[in-house]
């Protein structure tokens, strides 16, 4: 029996995210934990990992940063997308006040956590940042789910001017747990804040991946494989590796 490697789904709806991103709502479901990822393939272009922004229906939020994401951003209703997975481990829920910190397209990794937490009656606050207003993603989605949503931009073109981490700091005493995804410099800064007593913190890491199933080793972060051991880690697990990026 030749079982398919991928689930082939069609784009049911396209939502534009800022000036150079999209959310693709697909026509099928792919049940997953919040924070798990799928390998997304467009034949003739490439395959890369993306966190599922939603699972019922399967939904991807994409920032246009390379050949595959550019092609994904150009998809129209009815076009096909190939997914395999879900893979990896998602976010554990700790306590009843969750603070989400998303930098750039990293916010997509936190959206399903916000939805699940809210439907379980937990309180959610979020800080979402980007370089400029046009690069902010999923603010519209999180606004309905979060008791408080703080937007930041590096250039001050929307929300607070400055780093999203700085903006989130004021909500840390409120939170029972912090969840973050974004540029590595942001996660490194978060890891180095640990000494000042922030709540338990989990981060979702992004790496170049080949297999997605823990065999090729391409996505290592220190001794950890981001695909199989992560992509979600307790920040203590990866703090040393984030501060010592060996080749």
């Amino acid at each position, binding site marked *: *029996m030749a079982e398919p*490697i991928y689930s082939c789904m069609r784009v049911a709806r396209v939502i534009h995210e800022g000036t150079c991103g999209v959310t693709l709502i697909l026509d099928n479901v792919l049940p997953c934990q919040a924070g798990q990822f799928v390998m997304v393939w467009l034949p003739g272009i490439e395959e890369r990992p993306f966190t599922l922004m939603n699972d019922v229906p399967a939904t991807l939020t994409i920032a246009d940063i390379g050949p595959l994401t550019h092609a994904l951003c150009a998809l129209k209703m009815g076009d096909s997308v190939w997914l395999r997975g879900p893979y990896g481990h998602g976010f554990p829920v700790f306590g009843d006040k969750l603070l989400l910190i998303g930098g750039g397209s990293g916010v997509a990794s936190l959206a399903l956590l916000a939805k699940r937490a809210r439907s379980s009656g937990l309180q959610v606050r979020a800080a979402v940042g980007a370089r400029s207003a046009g690069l902010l993603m999923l603010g519209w989605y999180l606004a309905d789910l979060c008791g408080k949503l703080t937007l930041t931009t590096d250039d001050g073109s929307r929300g607070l001017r400055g780093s999203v981490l700085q903006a989130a700091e004021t909500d840390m005493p409120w939170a029972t747990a912090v969840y973050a995804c974004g540029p590595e410099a942001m996660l490194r800064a978060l890891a180095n804040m640990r000494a000042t007593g922030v709540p338990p913190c989990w981060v979702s890491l992004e790496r170049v991946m080949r*297999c997605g199933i823990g065999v090729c080793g391409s996505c*290592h972060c220190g*001794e950890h494989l981001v695909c199989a051991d992560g992509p979600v880690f307790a920040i203590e697990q990866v703090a040393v590796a984030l501060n010592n990026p060996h080749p």
Partner: protein
Amino acid sequence: MVETDIRVNLADLELHSPLVLASGVWGCAAETLIRAAAAGAGAVTSKSCSVLPRRGHPNPAVLPWQGGLINAVGLANPGAAEERDILHRAQQSLRPLGVPLIASIYGGTPEEYARAAGLVAEAAPDIIEVNISCPNVQSEFGYPFALEASAAAEVTSAVRSAYRGRLFIKLSPNAPDIVAVAAAVVRAGADGLTAVNTMGPGMLIDTHARCPILSNKAGGISGTALRPIALRCVYDISQAVCVPIIGTGGIDSGEAALQMVMAGASAVGVGSALAGEGAAVFERINRELAILMRTEGITRLGEVRGCAHG
């Protein structure tokens, strides 16, 4: 009840377990090599490196299927100079663990193999394994050296002249006469053999996309589908040569490992089985092997090495 001992000797190296982390799996970084060793591997093999860095093939490059894995990573590596530093870092932690380090090298010509060997030798690996059998780069390099005895021997001689340490040659299950290739590389100076690399190349096609899935179209087959072929290769080779063999191909249990030893292997490579299970696979196979040996009344693996020959 017999006391079992899963330690093996591999080219005068004492391995606390016969399980060897196979090349191409986890071996990109010092930290992951060390993790595999700490998890129970008796020796660990780094990912093949060439003199110059290689990006490898674009994704899709590694896919799971019902029979195991198919891959066309295309020998992505940071180049031998950087690899030497990775190996050096790995060796600093592996030595105290008593886990030998095997450095895998690749080249487009015998001279490139020799240069790569010279560079990684500076990190003092315990064995250099020469990958002459990658089936995923034919469009770039032509057929692998491992398919033909004289070509394989030529690479072996070139590396032998550049490196005085333990030298293993990794053979291809696709060779029309793997025994002749094995004999030729041993005559050319190999101290041991790794048998086998992935087979094929094979292909997966997506029904809806109506095209091959791998960006390279074709890729090497490993895992369960390879095991009977690897067993036969090791069985045939071990009758013809008197050097140690790391039997590799679809080993995912203590029973499969023991069968590989019975075919004639001194140690047993583990690669595709890490998919999904991770490093825990080493501890599990070690445990299963010890239990099976007790059940079968085997004290040491040397007692049954090659016993399938009768």
